[in-house]
């Protein structure tokens, strides 16, 4: 038995860190960052090609780069990092040894091999089928095989997480219920199992089709099941990055949930309803009834949206409550002004929260309306939306938590602290630009996944309005800015991890979590003692007003197009 495994106690947080979990967190996080770099470079090439004045790549390279960008960032970077998050949320937060570390390493190896195989297939040039690989577009068989291996590896990692929860319970390494962050990570892991199962159901037959063992795959069936994988994988991210919002506000500010019941209830809604969102992709497909579309696209009756709207209040709300407890009680927003804006973990988390809610959340609900989707489907509005959710939301939250993992797990001091301080702002501004300008171009009809909207060699050309080219140019500039922000992150992360100054553990007695006196005061108060949160209420009112206005403005846009029935 590995119960006597070595652990150390983190000096700052008092958390018990087991060697096996620590090594796996390190490996997964480092590999994730490598793929972030690869995928990011392809992303910049894509954006520069769609910037008319530059039009960087030829058509075949453009579609290759777009496929590589999607696979490496939407899947590889995010899932590797999520494995690190799962091991952290189970082993480290519960102070428990990791279940079957060897299996976890096997999963890690499968993911790495799978990612490498798929990347090679894409770079060979005969697998430019996009992240979605819609049949009957055919990729090299190794493309599908790589994705399948990667998914199996991720599934193993997910079960190591579940196993660790069981061990922690058995060995009583914690009392009562698991922490909220672990609860959120569990939600992410449950969604991951559903996601990977859906991926297997569709990609295994597709692999067999690519090698000739299956003769035909129905396109509508493919899209229906593939999106249960493709969209749900982004729902893992939502659960994971919201857990990280809670994690960062707890570690940096000592924030405590306003109400465990409400926050956990909101996470539970994700388990029950988030997966229905694969319908968002099928709203203008033939052969699917409106009843099916309305029920699924709205997550029953917007119950998963309800979950997100709740987190959108409880995260800033718990920050406000913690700050007010510390004495920042003047006016509506002193608590917000006095937040540690120079700490990249905090600023990254807060920018992620704002951009995810205002840009990603609102646009996602609006484009998911059955009828409004008619004026948005497959335009570049769609990538505009998901860059706000997956890049501004998930990626920025992952970057922010890395600034905590470097001292805690890698035991290194942050290198280039000045650059680290600026990084979330630069990256956040760049991504906000990408999202806004792509959404703007999308409302002008610009298609996604399109090499050249000036259609130089088309027989029946169509001229897009000049504003569309302007938007795509601004998108290119924003992508460069986000690229700078991404490079700053990689420089800080890689620099600190490999060349940073080692933090030496002193022989002091282990301290309890949140040994910081101020944080402890905040953490101990009961729910009844939460101060009022007027500032958050103002923020929520602003959010809700924008949401309602934008929602009805889009109905107005829809009402102006040709009648259809």
């Amino acid at each position, binding site marked *: 038995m590995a119960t006597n495994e070595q652990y150390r106690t983190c000096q700052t947080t008092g958390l018990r860190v087991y060697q096996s979990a620590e090594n796996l967190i390190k490996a997964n996080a480092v590999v994730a960052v490598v793929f972030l770099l690869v995928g990011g470079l392809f992303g910049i090439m894509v954006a520069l090609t769609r910037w008319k004045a530059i039009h960087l790549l030829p058509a075949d390279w453009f579609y290759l780069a777009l496929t590589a960008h999607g696979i490496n960032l939407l899947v590889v970077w995010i899932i590797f990092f999520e494995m690190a998050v799962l091991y952290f949320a189970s082993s480290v937060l519960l102070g428990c040894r990791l279940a079957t570390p060897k299996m976890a390493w096997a999963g890690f190896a499968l993911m790495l091999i799978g990612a490498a195989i798929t990347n090679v297939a894409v770079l060979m040039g005969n697998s430019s089928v996009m992240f979605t690989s819609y049949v*009957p577009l055919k990729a090299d068989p190794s493309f599908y095989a790589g994705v399948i291996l990667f998914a199996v590896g991720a599934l193993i990692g997910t079960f190591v997480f579940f196993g660790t929860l069981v061990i922690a319970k058995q060995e009583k390494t914690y009392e009562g219920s698991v922490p909220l962050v672990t609860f959120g990570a569990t939600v992410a892991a449950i969604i991951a199992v559903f996601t990977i199962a859906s991926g297997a159901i569709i990609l295994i037959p597709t692999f067999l089709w690519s090698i000739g063992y299956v003769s035909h795959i129905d396109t509508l069936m493919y899209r229906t099941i593939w999106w249960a994988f493709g969209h749900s994988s982004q729902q893992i991210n939502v659960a994971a990055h919201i857990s990280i919002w809670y*994690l960062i506000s707890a570690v940096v500010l000592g924030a405590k949930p306003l109400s465990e019941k409400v926050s956990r209830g909101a996470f539970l809604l994700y388990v029950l309803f988030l997966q229905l969102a694969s319908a968002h992709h099928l709203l203008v497909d033939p*052969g699917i009834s409106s009843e099916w579309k309305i029920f699924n696209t709205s997550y029953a009756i917007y119950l998963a949206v309800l979950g997100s709207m*709740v987190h959108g209040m409880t995260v800033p709300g718990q920050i406000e409550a913690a700050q007010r407890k510390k004495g920042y009680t003047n006016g509506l927003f002193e608590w917000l002004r006095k937040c540690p804006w120079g700490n990249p973990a905090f600023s990254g988390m807060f920018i992620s929260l704002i951009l995810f809610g205002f840009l990603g959340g609102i646009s996602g609900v609006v484009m998911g309306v059955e009828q409004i989707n008619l*004026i948005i489907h497959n*335009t570049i509005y769609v990538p505009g939306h998901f860059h706000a959710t997956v890049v501004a939301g998930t990626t920025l939250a992952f970057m922010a938590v890395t600034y905590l993992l470097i001292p805690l797990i890698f035991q290194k001091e942050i290198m280039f602290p000045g650059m680290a301080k600026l990084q979330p702002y630069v990256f956040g501004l760049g991504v906000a630009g990408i999202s806004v300008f792509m959404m703007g171009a999308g409302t002008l009809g610009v298609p996604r996944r*399109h090499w050249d909207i000036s259609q130089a060699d*088309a*027989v029946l050309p169509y001229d897009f309005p000049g504003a569309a080219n302007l938007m795509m140019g601004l998108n290119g500039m924003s992508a460069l800015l986000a690229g700078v922000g991404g490079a700053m992150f990689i420089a800080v992360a890689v620099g600190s991890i490999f060349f940073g100054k080692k933090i030496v553990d002193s022989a002091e007695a282990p301290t309890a979590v949140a040994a910081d006196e101020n944080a402890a005061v905040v953490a101990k108060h009961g729910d*009844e003692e939460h101060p009022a949160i007027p500032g958050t209420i103002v923020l929520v009112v602003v959010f809700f007003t924008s949401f309602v206005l934008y929602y009805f403005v889009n109905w107005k846009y829809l009402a102006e197009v040709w009648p259809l029935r």
Partner: protein
Amino acid sequence: MSVTPPTNRIWWNERVPKSELIWVIVAFVWGLIMFFMMIYWHAYGEQNLSNEAYKITAEQFTEKTEAMVEKYQVREESGYPVVHPPPGEDVYMIARLWQWWPILELEKGQSYRLHLSSLDWMHGFSLQPININLQIHPDYEMVLTVTPTTTGEFGVVCNEYCGIGHHTMLGRIYVVDNEGK
């Protein structure tokens, strides 16, 4: 804290702060409004995608489209037949690598049953600058009734990636004013 087990072991009995409770109710009601808005639009709105669709083969769809072209072709442009079917008629448009075929000429204010299908891969029907977007599958025939309300020349862009010639896949629809006739 969110990183430690709840301080109160029986956390599910804790009182929910009023501000949170109100927000949960507001958000839930807003969800209901958005849900019923889609149903309302089916009853009173003018832009609803029909649920009519059929399984069809590429050969059958080509046959139907060619029959229409033969019957109603009025001229040719850049090698494409231009078809002007009478109002209320069934009109067909083929999506294939890398064409929308043929060119349609419709009359303003009249309704047409538009049939769309792909002969090979998936394509995206994107009518510009109106910005109506539909997913076009092979083996499925989508039928919708459309009423053009503006005249002019409209582009049909392909907005589902369909290989290296994707960006050259464009079609055209003309809408003419026929009230004077």
